[in-house]
């Protein structure tokens, strides 16, 4: 009888202890909100970023700063009209500690504004809208990719160095296209070239024929284009079908041939692009990253996967410094700003405007790979025009 009594008491004590102990033992989880395109033109990009991010987290034992992670996912559909509602869901309804997103520049603008208004932590794994690390810059908005104008700027320098005198540009008429062409024009004309005509068409339409005909009639030394995803596939194929590939070199930022080479096939062989990443960068980190990514997802990683991976690495570095306590916001941001990230693209750190300072490579498509054939600009930091921080 007594023994049974004791057993009961022990059990009760254990239960009570468990109740008391559980909040202390199970620390608060880190809540990560993905707001990325999982459908639409940029769906493949959104998935690659998510995969890359989760690979970086897996390398940390599936934890951030020693704490478990809760993921919340929102499909932004690359639709700027739905962006404010979507980002507010993450901030106000789900109360996430950090938002990761997105690809489309217009959507990212809405996210940056909401992040600024609500003082939410935002990590941008792709969208290169110049303003985000320009006039809109803030300590809590950090980008791990590039600014729209920087690959264009690098290509403008390359084109001028190669002695091209005249260039026609063709791009989707939206912020990313305008800024990419703007960066190209700035460097190219500084180097003595001239952009003789700027052509554009609405996003995401892909009827290029009249523009290709116009290019054939102007016969410039080269053509600079900004397209990504499905549009990039179509443009490269149409450019080849129009017989222009052999006579007028096609130049672009790396998005023209990243994640699209399989679909572009032979039409893309030999194209020159500039980007902060290339497929066969021979550094130990890149080799390890490529092997691990291929093992985990059974596809070759692209620049988007790499940017997702680095976003994960950066957040891991930040959370490590604060032991996963997301309430220590200032220390967390400070740690990310001073971190030197060992990235597959080569080491990078953040500029004053929270944009990566990095090498931009000149790449050529060789056997369906974006092979680096040189460095277009070393340690390039976006000028961050208008950022007061």
């Amino acid at each position: 009888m007594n023994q049974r009594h004791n057993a009961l008491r022990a059990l009760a004590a254990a239960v009570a202890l468990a109740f008391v102990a559980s909040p202390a033992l199970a620390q608060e989880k880190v809540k990560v909100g993905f707001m990325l395109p999982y459908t639409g033109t940029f769906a493949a990009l959104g998935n690659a970023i998510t995969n890359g991010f989760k690979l970086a987290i897996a390398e940390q034992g599936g934890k951030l700063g020693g704490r478990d992670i809760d993921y919340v996912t929102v499909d932004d559909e690359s639709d700027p009209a739905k962006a404010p509602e979507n980002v507010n869901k993450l901030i106000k309804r789900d109360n996430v500690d950090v938002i990761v997103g997105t690809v489309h520049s217009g959507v990212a603008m809405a996210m940056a504004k909401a992040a600024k208004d609500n003082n939410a932590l935002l990590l941008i794994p792709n969208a290169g809208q110049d303003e985000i690390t320009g006039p809109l810059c803030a300590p809590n908005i950090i980008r791990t990719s590039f600014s729209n104008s920087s690959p264009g700027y690098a290509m403008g320098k390359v084109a001028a160095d190669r002695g091209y005198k005249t260039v026609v540009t063709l791009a989707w008429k939206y912020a990313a296209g305008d800024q990419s062409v703007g960066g190209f024009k700035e460097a190219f004309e500084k180097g003595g070239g001239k952009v003789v005509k700027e052509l554009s068409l609405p996003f995401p339409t892909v009827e290029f024929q009249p523009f290709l005909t116009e290019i054939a009639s102007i016969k410039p030394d080269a053509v600079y284009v900004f397209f990504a995803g499905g549009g990039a596939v179509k443009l490269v194929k149409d450019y080849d079908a129009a017989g222009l590939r052999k006579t007028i070199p096609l130049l672009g930022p790396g998005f023209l041939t990243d994640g699209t080479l399989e679909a572009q096939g032979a039409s893309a062989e030999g194209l020159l692009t500039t980007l902060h990443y290339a497929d066969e960068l021979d550094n130990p980190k890149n080799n390890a990253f490529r092997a691990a990514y291929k093992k985990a997802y059974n596809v070759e990683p692209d620049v988007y996967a790499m940017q997702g991976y680095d976003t994960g690495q950066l957040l891991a570095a930040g959370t490590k410094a604060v032991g996963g306590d997301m309430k220590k916001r200032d220390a967390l941001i400070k740690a990310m700003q001073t971190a030197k990230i060992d990235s597959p693209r080569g080491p990078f750190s953040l500029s004053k405007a929270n944009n990566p300072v990095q090498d931009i490579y000149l790449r050529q498509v060789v056997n369906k790979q974006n092979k680096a054939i040189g460095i277009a600009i070393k340690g390039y930091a976006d000028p961050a025009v208008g950022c007061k921080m």
Partner: protein
Amino acid sequence: MDIVAIQLLNAVQYGLLLFLVASGLTLIFGIMGIINLAHGSFYMLGAYMAFTLSSLTGSLAVAMVLGVVLSVVIGLVLEWTLFSHLYKRDHLEQVLLTYGLILIFEELRSLIVGNDVHGVPVPALFGGSIALVDTMTYPVYRLVMSGVCLAIAAGMYVLIQRTRLGMTIRAGASNREMVGVLGVNVNLVFRIVFALGVALAAFAGMLAAPVSSVYPGMGQQVLIICFVVVVIGGIGSVWGALVASLLIGLVDTFGKVLVPEYAGVAVYLLMAAILLWRPEGLFRRG
């Protein structure tokens, strides 16, 4: 000079494709008196059928045949269940119903195929390019497209002007009651016209799919420009639709490359100018 000729070719080719879509709209609008906002959705339907059926069957030609049959059936069913109740009602109710159809078609598209952008491969037979001038080659498929559009335009002319069915359609359009009294089944005639309109739009979508890709919202873009065609050409005039389509093809194509900053509004300026000059369009029916 050669290049201008190629640009003209681009313009004509775009114009002819536009005509294919717009002719269906003008037929339904002019002859049956129905404002069909869902017409662009039929174009989208065609493009997505080309995508799904050609990936299932492996052949764009087979997909097109199946697609035309399917779209005729869809047209007949829609006319029977919904549109036949609209003839005697005012335009507002027609707009409400057909706008509802746009939403339904878009949502169905999203549920069945998803929101991704897809490419449709050009059939291998027409996959090549031919050299028209020394600086540029021209994809064969685009030439084939224009040929097909021309053939269909000719076929429509014969159908409407030279056949008994065409005669009944024209008669039914000008006086529905009278034709009915004469013992013609007007309801059946209208059902056929409607199905024909749907099939034309869907066929245009299928033909354009390899060139334009298929993407969400593609129907609305086409719808707006088709209404411009109908307004410029004169409501109900198939001949007017052809002229207006070619005109828009020219203005749009040359506008894009000559005044890139204003390309978006060039077509609408054209419409405004023509309406000032001829408020009823270039070719008024009847």
